[in-house]
């Protein structure tokens, strides 16, 4: 019952919110949780990362060791590739395929997607349109949570309940948008990419 998840994305995409929801679910599943974040300069449109560790025993390090993560959960495809050295060979990459091209030397998207396709275990989700269909372009982090739900050490419905509870505090509309986003992500991950 171990999950070591490297969450990645670009400042403003909701990486830390996603990490917080996962951590809450882990706690409800009675796992020990450690959640590491980087604040400060990383927020200004730069690469953002969080380490989330969940285990049914004590967790020592705040940092996930290279070559040992069970999952990279990324809201941006280049950021998913950036953290590959942290992934265990048996680990899975769950990532959005939608680029954030806020840098001048962004590589051709086809090359990025091809690199992801060569990985042993990758779930690549076209998250932005799913988020928009759910009702908000900002919900792509929750789409990715849905896509990741099948690879976690607790039931998907537990994670879904945490999404529901968090967004319920921000109004009914946002709750429904995010539940639709979660379900869309879950469905997208169930269909083999092709």
């Amino acid at each position, binding site marked *: 019952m171990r999950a070591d998840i490297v969450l990645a994305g*670009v*400042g403003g995409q909701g990486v*830390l*919110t996603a990490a*917080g*929801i996962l*951590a*809450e679910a882990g*706690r*409800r599943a009675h796992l*020990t*949780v*450690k*959640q*590491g*974040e*980087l*604040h*400060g*300069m*990383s*927020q*200004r*449109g*730069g*690469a953002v990362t969080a*380490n989330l560790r969940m285990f049914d025993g004590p*967790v*020592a*390090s*705040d*940092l996930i*060791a*290279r*070559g*040992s993560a069970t999952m990279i959960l990324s809201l941006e495809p280049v*950021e998913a*590739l950036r953290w*590959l*050295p*942290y*992934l*265990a*060979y048996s680990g899975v990459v769950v990532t959005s395929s939608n680029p954030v091209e*806020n*840098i001048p*030397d*962004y*590589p051709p998207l086809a090359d*990025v997607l091809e*690199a992801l396709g*060569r*990985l042993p275990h990758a779930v690549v989700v076209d998250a932005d349109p799913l988020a928009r269909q759910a009702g908000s372009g900002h919900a792509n982090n929750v789409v990715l949570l849905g896509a990741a739900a099948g690879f976690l050490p607790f039931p998907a419905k537990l994670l879904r309940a*945490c999404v529901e*509870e*968090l967004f319920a*505090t*921000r*109004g*009914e509309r946002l709750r429904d948008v995010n539940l639709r986003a979660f379900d869309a992500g879950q469905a997208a991950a169930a269909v083999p990419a092709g």
Partner: protein
Amino acid sequence: MPEGIVGDRAAPLGPVGNAAGRPPLLLGDEAVALAALHAGISAAYAYPGTPSTEIFEYLEPRASAFGVVAHWCANEKTAFEQALGMSMVGGRVLVSMKHVGLNVAMDPFLNSALVRIHGGLVLAVADDPGMHSSQNEQDSRVLADFAGVPCLEPGNQQEAYDMTREAFAWSERHHVPVMVRLVTRLCHGRAEVRASDALAPLPASKPSDARDWILLPGYARRLRGLLLEAQEDIRADTAASHWNYLEAVPPYPVRRGVLTSGIARNYLLENLEDVDEPLPHLHVGAHPIPHDMVLELASQVDEVLVLEEGEPVLERRIRGALPALHVVRGRDTGDVPATGELTPEAVRGALGLPPRRELSSALPLPGRPPQLCQGCPHRDAFQALGIALEGHDDAVVAGDIGCYTLGALPPFEALESCVCMGASIGMAKGASDAGVRPAVAVIGDSTFLHSRLTPLVAAVAHDTDMTVLILDNGTVAMTGQQPTALPHSRLEAVVLGVGADPDHVRVVPTHPRRVPELAAVIRQEIAHPGLSVILAVRECIEAVRRNKSAAKAAEDGPS
């Protein structure tokens, strides 16, 4: 104190809420803040700086429920001095800052070890090994040692809580401030933290002997003697402390042992399952390091590997203390990288274990550095500065510390220096004194108020031929929109108040459509052969957004 109040106040600021029945999931920073509230502080003072900011951010909204005064301060020195005043009259007090902030507070800090601390004074200082958001990676443990005060170094969030609480009692027992030394990964890592009952603040009481707080040379010599005498008691405390312990010592000699401090222990534990030899382990959470425990470890091993976050502080100390037959390995010997933060991998390598199998991307990946926000007023200011300096190839533009430091990077490349908080004005004056024209200082409003009134006074006194461009966005933006020491509206009066020539103190709005106007003003003031100060004013775009959503939330009412 009413029943249940601790639980209520311990509610986390975490993004989701609290899993039923579990202790709150707190950042290391938040654990320090909660511990201080529970230890019965009367006040907390701070200046924001990553990775320490969240200590005060967690504490401030809870302060009034505990009857605690909580103030953001103009800088770290003034924060420390306010804490000293509180301690002198018997109140417990927390003062927090980042590692380089302690340089600013060094004068009161070092001298606070000499006065007889009355109410417990705890300095929480957050180091930034690896320089995630800082200009250097200095190790505050060196400064605790220099001052002669104890330093507690938590290895996890629970210890951050427990040690901070305990630190107040240490401070009162030894009459010195106590440092709680944090590092980035602990500050910004969350874990469940179990809190204990809150204590009520102590009533104010002046020190019984007035000489205890007067560092006139005659009195200071006595106090210096008392501080030296206290060292023995402090060492006895750390030797008896459960924060320091020796474990896994086999009853026979083995090749090597490990010494860890703070969070370095976590990285050892992370790799321990792959170590197939007995590995005696001395962990130090309370400094100064107890020498007897080091000797006990050394008596069973030939070699000691030292794992510590920051400088090779313990490594050097024990190398000097152990018989010459022992090999001490660490950062100085290259077994651990000399710079950068510790990682599970770095420790794995130092233990001599093979690296884990790693995947990598065949595709070369571009970096994604932080940038100024879209709509940020600094963008317009840098554009205007660029226009104004066209044709002035010899110009020197001294920069400072804040979001606007990003103006040193492409596409603007507008700044030529970034050294420490407020250095821009002094450095521009130095360059001007050397004959460089134009000499420009670019500084934010909060950084200006932090420590730049005094160098501005010097520039006024000499009417130095230089132009100070204050980017006034009305907030401490980079650390998350803390309030500045003085509001927008007072800044011009402050500049005029130190004697700047009113004809050359200009207030100009910063706006995409008014870039030419700002550029023209900068050009005029560069041409003036004396001191000019330009206040380029527009509110931080993030602050505007935050205020808008706060206003909307207030309008919508509770959902």
